[in-house]
Structures are given as structure tokens and as C-alpha cells.
């Protein structure tokens, strides 16, 4: 008898999770000003239930039939290894977010009705779990829309600021557009197969291409893949930090889930063009995200661009998987899929950790602009340590979890290089290895900038000077996630066991545990022991010659102030200049003063850049649509009651006519 049977099975656990979250939803709706244990405990309990389903639920596939119907499709859910993987992601991020939120939301209490925020959070959790459990396209669309709307409510929660309202509407527009594509694709697939169940959607060849592309565009918009990423860097800074953590860590991953479900595992839509599309758009996304992240001074916007980068890395993994399948190399296909899924989990953990860290800084200093921060490592030691671990992890540094998944992706590329049918394809695979290395090095530069300017050095403003450590809830949430980063990286062999249950669906007889050959636990131990030995030696030496504490070397000009430190803009300048052509990077330096050539009194330097995709493509496009719609809508909606009565009569007549036939 397994543990899950003891608990009443996976279905009962899912039901319990739904119950807890609904309870949190109702409490939140009834008491708009409340934000306390009565609401956090059910939120945590719901996530724990999901984790139970994922971790001890076994590997078999379970169908859950709820006796409701949506038109001709039943309200059906499935629990299989793939959905368990994503349930685990929702649960793992859901718990720290619920622990973190009360402390964070406290500083918003005068502007925001906290109960409603909690209610929307509960609804977001329910809908995300619903998306990864739904067995057919209609249930998927319903939960997908609930997810979009609840996250929209969360983004706009601090709605008194104009900028936030604008961000929320851009998000709403993007997610509506995505859903429109998704619906069109689903309808097309239903038309071709006659079924709403995902398991019946076995399409291949040219017939599959149309629905596949539509579905891909719909999902890519949600995931934030280039060129559909424009909402991400706008919506994430607007949302409260725990919401950004959930949206960036988990919500955009539901799109990855759907891509895996629809394009890769089981009976699926098999369009050969999708693999290269995923690989190319993923490669562009990853690069695009990181070079734009380097330019950002708003910490949350920087992290949002890194989500674009990491979604790109995940999509590259999926692309490797699909392409390897077309090469008839099942091992490589499994490697690619494993890299993508593992990176999805890892990104959920380190990105939510980083967003929560940003939230802790925001709650204590009310600042997100890195140029005004500094020296926080002394004032917020725990937040700083957790943030450094998260940064090292997102930069794929061993022995943390980011390295494990990127290593799998490297192996996937290398496998493509060995199995590619033509010189071009093999060269492309080797090139992509270099490309991934470039992205990794850029990520290191970006996070050295973020950590170095925010946490190290001397505070650059009074608010940063007066900061103090966040509350115990906020700190413990971050520490949990930081520990997870290390554990998942070191115990990667264990992670391969549930992963191989998923990847076995695309090519059996191969065990992923054999592919993972790196001795991470031993390496971590040896690394720690070596560092410890050197530290002990240094300590021994310091007994004879103790260290002296003195000011930083200032060339004899007197003590250095905060303004003499390096800034984020100057740190990023050399790299930004190299890639300057991509975003019109420019630096303006103005020197002022009476005799400014010899005795300058003021020197101002300012860097500017322009996101061409937004300003040259999307903005004119949207402007034209708005103009056209304005002209059309003006005629349609002229404010005349007679005209409206006419429309109503027309629709009534139409309905009667449809009913008769």
C-alpha cells in the first residue's frame, strides 16, 4: 500500500488542495482587509497537497471525472508523470510564496485590499493546477482563462498608479491575443480529429502544421518567447513581488507544460517544422532576454528579462528533443526533454527566490532602482546570501541546480552534433553550444552587476542606508528556496528518476540516470573541504599576523563617498557597446560650468537605448489597429438609442432564425 493510497489517492489530494484554496478564496473575498494566518495556512496546505500528489503519488496515470459538462466535452482531468512534474513546481513555489506574502503585503496595506489579493492568489493557484491537470482542450481553455484573469487582477492590485494600470492592460491585451490564437488552434485540431481530448490529438504531416503554429503562437505569448515577450518586462515590475514570483516562476511555465503535452509526449500534434521553430526562437529569446536584462536598472524588470532568457533556454531543450526525434535519436530526444523540464523546475525555484529577494528589498527600502541601492549585504545579510545563491544558480554555476539542467542541454546539443545528418546541422549544433556559453557569460555579467551594485559597496541613498533585515517569514521563504537550489543541483541523480518517467514516453529502454554521470555530491564535498582547509590555514596565519581594517584605497584623496563607486550603467557599458547596434545604445555626456573646458563643475552621463521591436513593429501596428477600430466603432456605437434597439432586434431575429433551423 503506497503513501498516496493511505492519503486517499491522488484524486482526493487534488480535491483537498482545491478545498483549501477555495477556503482561502472565500475568506479573502469576505474580509478584504485581512491578511493573516487564517488565510496563509490554507494556502500552504493546498500547496502541500499538490506536493503530495507529485512526490508520493506513484507514476500511474489516473483519470478524474467530475460530473460536469462543457458542451460536448466532459470535465475531465488526468494525473500522469508530466502533470505531476508541474504540480510539484506549483507546490514548491506556492509554499514559500505563501510564507513570504504576509510580511511583504504589509507595506502595501494602505493602498491595496489585501484580502482580495489573497483571493486572487488562491484563484491563480487553483487555475494553474487546473491547467496542468486538464485532460481536454475545453477544460484547459476555461482554467487557462481563469489563470489569465486572476493574474491580471493581481498585476493591477496596486491600481492607484497610472503606470501599473497601463502595464496591466498591456498584459491583458497580450494574454487575450494569445488565447485567441490558442482557441483558433484548438478549434482547428478539434475539426481535424473530432475530439477535445488531448490524447486523441494524433496529427502529423502537413495537416498538423496549421493548428500547431496557431497553438504555438498562443502558448509562446504566455511563455514570453521572443518576439511575443513584450508584456513580460512591463507586467512583472508592476505586480507585487510574490505575484511576480508566481507569474514568472510558475504561470508562464504552464505554457511550457502545454507545449510538451501537445507537441512532444504521448499522442501529439507532430509537425516537423515546430522543432526548428522552437530551437531558433528559443536561441533568439535567450540572447535577447539577457542583453536587455543587462541594460535594466529596475531590479524587477531585469529579472523579467531574465525570464525571457530562461524561457528561451527551455524552448531550446524542447527544440533539441523534437529535432532529435526527427533524426531518430531517442536518447538525445530524451536528453533535450529532460533538460527542458529540469530547467523549468530550476528556473521556477531560482527566479521566485530572486523575485522574493527583490520584494524584501522593496519592502524595506521602497526602492527597486539598483543605482540607489548598495551595501545591503551588511543590512540584510540573509536576503543577500539567498540572493547570491539564486544568482549563482541562474548563471548555471556548479554545484547549483541551474548548472545541472544547462549541462543536460549542452549534452543535448552535443548529441545533435554527433547525430546530425548534414554538415550544416552538425555545425549548427556546435555553434549552439558556443551560443549557450555566450548566454551564460552574459548572465554572469548581468548578475554580478545586480548583486554587486545592490548588495555590495556603500549605500547610494539614505533609504538604502537605513534598511534592515526583512521579517522572519520573508527570510525563511528565501532560505527555503536557496537551499532547494543547492539540493536539486547536488542531488540531480535523484531528480532524474521522476524525469525519466516522463521522458520514457518518447523513447523507452533508455534510463536517464545513466546519462547523468557527474559526481556532484562528492564534488560539492571536496569543494567545501578544500575551501575549509584553505580557510583554516589562513586562520592559522592570521594568529601571528592579524588583519588590519582600513579604508578602501582612494589614491590619497580622502575617504571615498558612495558616488565614487562604479554604477550599474557603467558596469554594463562595455558589453552594451559591443551589442549596441541591436538596441541603439548611446551615451550622452554633458559637461557644464563657467569655464567648462578647464574647470568642469557638473558632468552628467546618461545612457539610452531603444527596443526596436516594440517601437518600430508593435507600436505602429497597434496604433493602426486602434485608429481603424476607432473609425469603425464610432459608427457602430454612435450613442443613439434607436440604433441600439435595432441591433437588439437584429440579434433576437438571428437567434430565432438559428433556433428554428
Amino acid at each position: 500500500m503506497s503513501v498516496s493510497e493511505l492519503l486517499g489517492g491522488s484524486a482526493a489530494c487534488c480535491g483537498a488542495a482545491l478545498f483549501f484554496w477555495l477556503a482561502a478564496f472565500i475568506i479573502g473575498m469576505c474580509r478584504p482587509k485581512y491578511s493573516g494566518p487564517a488565510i496563509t495556512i490554507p494556502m500552504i496546505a493546498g500547496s502541500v497537497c499538490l506536493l503530495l500528489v507529485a512526490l508520493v503519488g506513484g507514476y500511474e496515470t489516473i483519470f478524474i471525472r467530475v460530473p460536469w459538462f462543457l458542451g460536448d466535452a466532459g470535465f475531465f482531468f488526468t494525473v500522469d508523470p508530466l502533470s505531476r512534474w508541474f504540480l510539484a513546481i506549483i507546490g514548491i513555489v506556492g509554499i514559500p510564496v505563501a510564507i513570504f506574502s504576509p510580511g511583504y503585503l504589509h507595506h502595501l496595506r494602505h493602498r491595496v485590499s489585501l484580502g482580495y489579493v489573497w483571493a486572487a492568489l488562491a484563484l491563480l493557484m487553483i487555475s494553474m493546477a487546473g491547467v496542468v491537470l486538464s485532460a481536454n482542450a475545453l477544460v484547459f481553455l476555461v482554467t487557462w482563462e481563469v489563470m489569465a484573469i486572476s493574474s491580471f487582477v493581481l498585476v493591477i492590485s496596486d491600481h492607484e498608479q497610472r503606470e501599473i494600470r497601463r502595464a496591466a492592460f498591456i498584459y491583458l491585451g497580450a494574454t487575450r491575443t494569445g488565447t485567441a490564437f490558442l482557441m483558433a488552434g484548438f478549434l482547428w485540431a478539434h475539426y481535424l480529429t473530432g475530439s477535445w481530448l488531448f490524447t486523441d490529438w494524433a496529427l502529423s504531416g502537413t495537416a498538423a502544421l496549421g493548428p500547431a503554429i496557431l497553438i504555438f503562437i498562443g502558448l509562446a505569448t504566455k511563455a514570453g518567447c521572443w518576439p511575443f515577450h513584450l508584456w513580460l518586462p512591463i507586467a512583472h515590475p508592476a505586480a507585487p513581488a510574490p505575484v511576480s514570483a508566481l507569474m514568472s516562476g510558475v504561470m508562464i511555465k504552464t505554457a511550457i507544460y502545454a507545449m510538451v503535452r501537445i507537441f512532444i509526449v504521448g499522442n501529439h500534434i507532430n509537425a516537423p517544422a515546430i522543432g526548428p521553430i522552437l530551437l531558433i526562437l528559443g536561441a533568439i529569446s535567450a540572447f535577447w532576454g539577457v542583453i536587455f536584462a543587462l541594460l535594466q536598472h529596475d531590479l524587477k524588470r531585469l529579472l523579467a528579462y531574465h525570464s525571457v532568457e530562461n524561457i528561451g533556454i527551455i524552448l531550446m531543450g524542447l527544440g533539441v528533443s523534437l529535432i532529435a526525434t526527427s533524426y531518430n535519436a531517442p536518447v538525445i530526444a530524451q536528453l533535450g526533454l529532460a533538460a527542458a523540464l529540469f530547467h523549468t523546475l530550476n528556473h521556477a525555484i531560482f527566479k521566485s527566490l530572486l523575485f522574493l529577494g527583490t520584494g524584501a528589498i522593496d519592502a524595506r527600502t521602497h526602492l527597486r532602482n539598483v543605482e540607489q541601492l548598495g551595501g545591503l549585504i551588511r543590512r540584510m545579510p540573509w536576503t543577500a546570501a539567498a540572493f547570491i545563491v539564486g544568482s549563482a544558480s541562474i548563471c548555471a554555476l556548479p554545484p547549483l541546480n541551474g548548472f545541472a539542467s544547462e549541462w543536460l542541454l549542452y549534452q543535448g546539443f552535443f548529441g545533435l552534433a554527433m547525430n546530425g545528418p548534414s554538415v550544416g546541422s552538425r555545425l549548427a549544433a556546435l555553434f549552439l553550444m558556443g551560443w549557450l556559453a555566450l548566454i551564460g557569460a552574459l548572465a554572469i555579467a548581468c548578475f554580478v552587476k545586480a548583486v554587486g551594485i545592490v548588495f555590495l559597496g556603500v549605500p547610494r541613498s539614505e533609504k538604502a542606508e537605513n534598511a534592515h533585515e526583512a521579517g522572519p517569514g520573508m527570510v525563511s521563504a528565501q532560505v527555503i528556496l536557496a537551499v532547494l537550489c543547492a539540493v536539486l543541483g547536488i542531488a540531480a541523480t535523484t531528480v532524474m528518476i521522476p524525469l525519466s518517467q516522463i521522458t520514457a514516453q518518447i523513447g523507452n529502454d533508455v534510463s536517464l540516470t545513466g546519462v547523468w554521470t557527474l559526481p556532484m555530491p562528492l564534488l560539492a564535498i571536496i569543494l567545501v573541504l578544500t575551501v575549509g582547509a584553505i580557510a583554516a590555514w589562513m586562520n592559522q596565519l592570521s594568529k601571528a599576523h592579524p588583519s588590519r581594517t582600513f579604508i578602501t584605497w582612494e589614491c590619497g584623496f580622502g575617504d571615498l563617498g558612495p558616488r565614487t563607486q562604479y554604477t550599474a550603467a557603467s558596469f554594463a557599458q562595455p558589453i552594451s557597446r559591443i551589442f549596441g547596434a541591436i538596441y541603439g545604445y548611446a551615451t550622452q555626456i554633458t559637461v557644464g560650468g563657467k569655464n567648462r573646458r578647464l574647470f568642469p563643475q557638473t558632468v552628467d552621463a546618461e545612457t539610452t537605448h531603444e527596443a526596436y521591436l516594440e517601437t518600430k513593429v508593435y507600436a505602429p501596428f497597434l496604433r493602426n489597429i486602434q485608429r481603424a477600430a476607432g473609425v469603425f466603432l464610432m459608427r457602430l456605437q454612435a450613442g443613439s438609442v434607436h440604433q441600439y434597439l435595432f441591433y437588439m432586434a437584429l440579434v433576437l431575429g438571428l437567434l430565432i432564425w438559428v433556433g428554428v433551423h
Partner: protein
Amino acid sequence: MNTLILFIFHAVNLLVIPLLLVGLIRKFKALMQNRTGAPILQPFYDLAKLLRKSQTVSKTASWVFTLAPLVSLAIALISAILVPWSSALLNPECAPWTNFLLVLYLLALGKFLTLLAAIDTGSAFGGLGASREATISMLVEPTLIMGLGALALGARSTNLLTIYADPINPFIAVLVGLALIITALAELSRMPVDDPTTHLELTMVHEAMILEYSGRSLAIIEYAVALRTCIFLGLAVQTLLHIWPEYYALSIFPRYLIGLSALSILGIAVAVAEGVLVKLKWRSVPNFLAYAAILSLLAALVAAAQV
């Protein structure tokens, strides 16, 4: 017996050769400049002196500043054991460790902390050095991984022991070897990318980063740099030696001696280059490193065509 030999071999490799190589480069550089120069053993004396001195730490510095040298030395030691820079003389049981991606990313972990430590003191020099070092490593990493990837494709394994155990296609070996030398010059902050002996902070990269270190911390940084010098130059040497088809067929001892002599020749070449070349303008560094990128792209092309 075998264990004892292995122990002596690693002890010599880790403790003697790196510092000797640095001393050799300095000596020949001095000769190039018509100076007598310090004795070849000077790095050992320097290290002993620094370890006996007390250190000064900035009052702004945090634990990152203290931790960074320790981690970078630990990583340099581990990598120096794992990378077959003198010749492949590791037990086959070490095979899972010698994956080149693991080693490069371990080195990147050391670099990440070193970059942070440079910013930690709040000095503008540290920030400048870190910013430039990050830029250089952004230009170097893709070349390294693509070049070693091309070698790996020939050996059909990403394991360094496997890659260097068999003969390598001479075309690929030459291309990757040259690319590795160029990237090593940048990675080790040597001319023409960076001048290790300059006294003008604004032109420095690596020296600006470690400006705040003194005493024993500086000693372990210098030692870690010496180890990294051996790793990168040695890897280039080993790659180039594989052009000679009989090299891999030799028994271990002559192979080791040939490897070391070739390494000292490359060290002397670096010293000569430092005597002849001028430091590049910072803005021209990407153009210089582009040569390495092109070489390893060509190597990748040859490797892809060959499979």
C-alpha cells in the same frame, strides 16, 4: 608504488610547476627588455613573503571579499588536477570528473565570486576591473566551449581524458590550439589584452580587480592565477602536441617531459610576445578575440564535416 608516483606527480604539478612557469615568463620578459630580471624562483620567495605578512582589509568589505580568494584557489586546485594540462596521467576512475563543461563552469564559479569581491570594497577600480573582466569572459567563453566542443566531436565524448587520449585530426588541433592560446592570453590577463605589470590603474583589468588584496589573500590569489596559467596554456600545448601522431603513443613519462618542455616554450613565447607587442586599446580587444572565435568556428566546421 603507483599511488606514490601519482602523489608525487600531482604534488609537483600543483606546487612547483605553476610558480616556476610564472617565474620563467617573468625572467624571459626581463631578458627581452635588456634587464637581468629576478631569479626564476622569485615567485616562490614572493609567495613566502606575502604569507608571512599581515593583510589590510577595507572596512567596506563583507564576507564575499574574504571568501572569493579561498574559493578561487580551491577551484584552481581541483581544475588543475582534472585538466590534463601536463599530460593525461589520471586514473580512469576520475573519468566522470573530467567533463570539460564541468571544469569550465567550475572556473566560472571562481570568476563569479572574484568579480563580486572586486565590487565589494566600493572602489571604482574594482568596479572597472570587474566590468572589463566580465566583458572579456563574455568574449572568451563561447570560443572555449565551441573549440573544445569541436575536439570533443572528434573524440565523440565531452570528457577531457577521452579527448586527449587519442590522436586528434591535425587541422582541428592546430585551429583549436591557436584559439586556445589567444583565449588564454585574454583569460590570464596578459598582453596584448591586459598588462600584468602596469602601474596605471585605469589600464588594468585583473590588477584593478585585486587592487584591494594584500598579504596572505594576495598570496593565494597569485597562486591561483599561476595554476590557471598552467591550465590554460597547458591545454593549448597538449592540443597542439597532438598534431604529432606519435605523441599519444609514447609512454607516460616521456610524454610528460615533452609536455612540460613544450609548456615552457609556450611560456617563453608569451614572454617574447609581451616584450614585442603593445597593449591593445580596450575597444580593440573584441576584434583581437574575434580571431579566436573564428578559429574555433573553423575548427567546428572541420569537425562537423569530418564526422
